[in-house]
């Protein structure tokens, strides 16, 4: 972990980056912002940890908990909303048995995220599974897709 922090810090110093790009690089590697990263960068850069926490909690992109093995992103933009993204989101949540405040399944297989718009509104509603975009989709299609990925839904559907 320490080695990775060092590499990220080096890049930051070379490119005259800022806290946001530093954290983006960190999340790119780990999938989330480990608490240790904030402690490390705060010490080496002489920036108060509160500034890091301020940025992490302000922007929707950052998270401080690890993501599941598969990432499902449900688009909830207006075009998707008027075409029933709510229903897809609800059935995904109930299928994955997620608690109201949780976005990751207990076995760490799936993380379900909501985003405001992925900008492919012509083929709404959209769900992105592991960076692959599914357009004009339905909950059925996505659940089938999840089945091929394994995980808790495997036997239950």
């Amino acid at each position, binding site marked *: 972990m320490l080695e990775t922090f060092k590499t990220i810090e080096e890049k930051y110093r070379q490119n005259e980056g800022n806290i946001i790009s530093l954290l983006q690089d960190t999340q790119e590697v780990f999938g989330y912002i480990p608490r240790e990263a904030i402690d490390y960068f705060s010490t080496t850069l002489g920036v108060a940890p509160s500034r890091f926490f301020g940025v992490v909690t302000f922007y929707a992109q950052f998270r401080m908990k690890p993501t599941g093995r598969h990432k499902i992103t449900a688009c909830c933009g207006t075009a998707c909303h008027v075409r029933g993204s709510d229903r897809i989101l609800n059935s995904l949540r109930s299928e994955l048995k997620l608690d109201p405040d949780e976005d990751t399944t207990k076995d760490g297989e799936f993380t379900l995220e909501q985003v405001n718009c992925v900008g492919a509104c*012509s083929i709404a509603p959209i769900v992105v599974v592991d960076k692959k975009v599914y*357009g004009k989709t339905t909950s059925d299609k996505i659940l089938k897709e999840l089945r091929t990925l394994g995980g808790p839904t495997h036997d239950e559907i």
Partner: protein
Amino acid sequence: MMKYKTVINVCMGTGGMASGGAEVLQAFREELEAAAIPAEVKEHCLSHRVGCRGLCAKDVLVDVLTDGSKTTYQFIKPDMVPRIVEEHIIGKSPVAEWQVGADYENFHQKQIKIVLSDCGKIDPEDPDDYHAVGGYGTARDVLTEWLPGEVIDEIKASGLRGRGGAGFPTGLKWELGRKARGDIKYIVCNADEGDPGAFMDRAVIEGNPHAVIEGMIIAAYAIGANYGYVYIRAEYPLAVERLNLAIEKARRRLFLGKNIFGTTFDFDIKVKLGAGAFVCGEETALIASIEGQRGMPRPKPPFPVNKGLWQRPTVINNVETLANVPYIMRRGSRWYASFGTERSRGTKVFALTGKIKNPGLIEVPMGITLREIIEEIGGGIEGGKKLKAVQTGGPSGGCIPASMLDINVDYESLAKVGSIVGSGGMIVLDEDNCMVNMAKYFIQFTQEESCGKCVPCRIGTKRLLEIMERITKGQGKESDLELLETLSNSVKVTSLCGLGQTAPNPVLSTLKYFRDEFDAHIRDKKCPAKVCKELITYAIIEEACKGCGACLRACPAGAITGEKKKPHTIDPEKCIRCGACFEACKFKSVGRD
């Protein structure tokens, strides 16, 4: 490009990619490589990717240009490629049944493409393609033959106004930037397209990133800025990739960097990724974000044009605004000003989505009527449903009722009816959409995105949302409507930045034009469009039910019981009103009231 007799364009924007564009391109390449194809065909054939041409709903779209004629195919899958190659490219007879229909022609006929003129034609990752259509040559001419003041006068004469939403005259902004005192100045391209349901900027950057870069070079020269930033959403990975690639290639050709185009002018661009905050579309919040801070707005003045990024003069222009610039400088302000209306010149790109037959990206002259857009370009409402309203301007805009379809689409006309042009989202709603739910959706969005700095926005939007939630749950009171109005007006006049000042617009405009729907929710506890979950019930129509069990399997709550081939029943206590049974039933035997 010219040396090829046959050119195959495969649509590979985000829409095209999602529909399998990369696989289709690969199939063309493999098929053309295949041994059976005559060598002379192979040699004179180029297949390449192009950016969005607008009609993503029919993706993957493929053009085959051969012997001077162009054929466009729709819904192409990799397994259809061999036949196209064999019959069309080798056999010279196009595959008629896969060609686009009248829809495709109508979609393009009423459009006037300036910003999008090269999108869907050139390979966005190849600067030579853009060069071949005159790209970067304009910037070179401007830098070597024009004085900065002349450039500003030309842009002023064109009547170009900010395409991000506010519509501030671009030439005037540049002039203020030029006059601002400071040794270091910045030009920032705002590509933080945060409006949900809008994707104009994404499509422009994916389809022709070079036009944006060239626009920035010209703007920088006019203002006297040597540094540029593009602030772009991280949610657009393909656009980010193509932009970075385009900048790198421009730098290699000395279009960016020191002494560009052999002049004494230095200019370079850095890309900063947004981190998912809608408020960062606001100029001062965007500046804070580029500086690495929480993206919170500050009061204006001082305006960014005097004190912006790191307290230096900064001009911030939207993607579409900048992408217009090279075309204006190339063809002249008089040409540009010949499109549009007296006060809204030129064209505007819109993302036409929702319940429309042909959703997509369109570019139309300002002043076109909404009816022309919906009926002629969009092909009307899908599924023979009735149009209810058109939402423009996203969370800052409003809903225009179907009765006002003949309104002209320009800055002034839309403002008059309580909406805005905004950045260009245009969402079509039909009779199945609940307007109260739409208003709630937008206020929920702005409430979540409120940065929390000023009280009216932070608390006002929260209270507005609570009232809207109450109404959609059937717990609304008669007095709520007046309260909504009063509170909305207070939030509008007292909020610090544009986010709060416009957040109540969707509520106010739906209240104005769709009061009967609010009344139905409050008085009759009914949702006429049958959208609001708490106000609808599901029941199986016994006579129609075949007992197929599709609803039973679809129900996530286990609320449906019944024997095979006998009518099923829904337990209202267990029913979570998700509507899964309604969608699963092929015999229309699930009733919704």
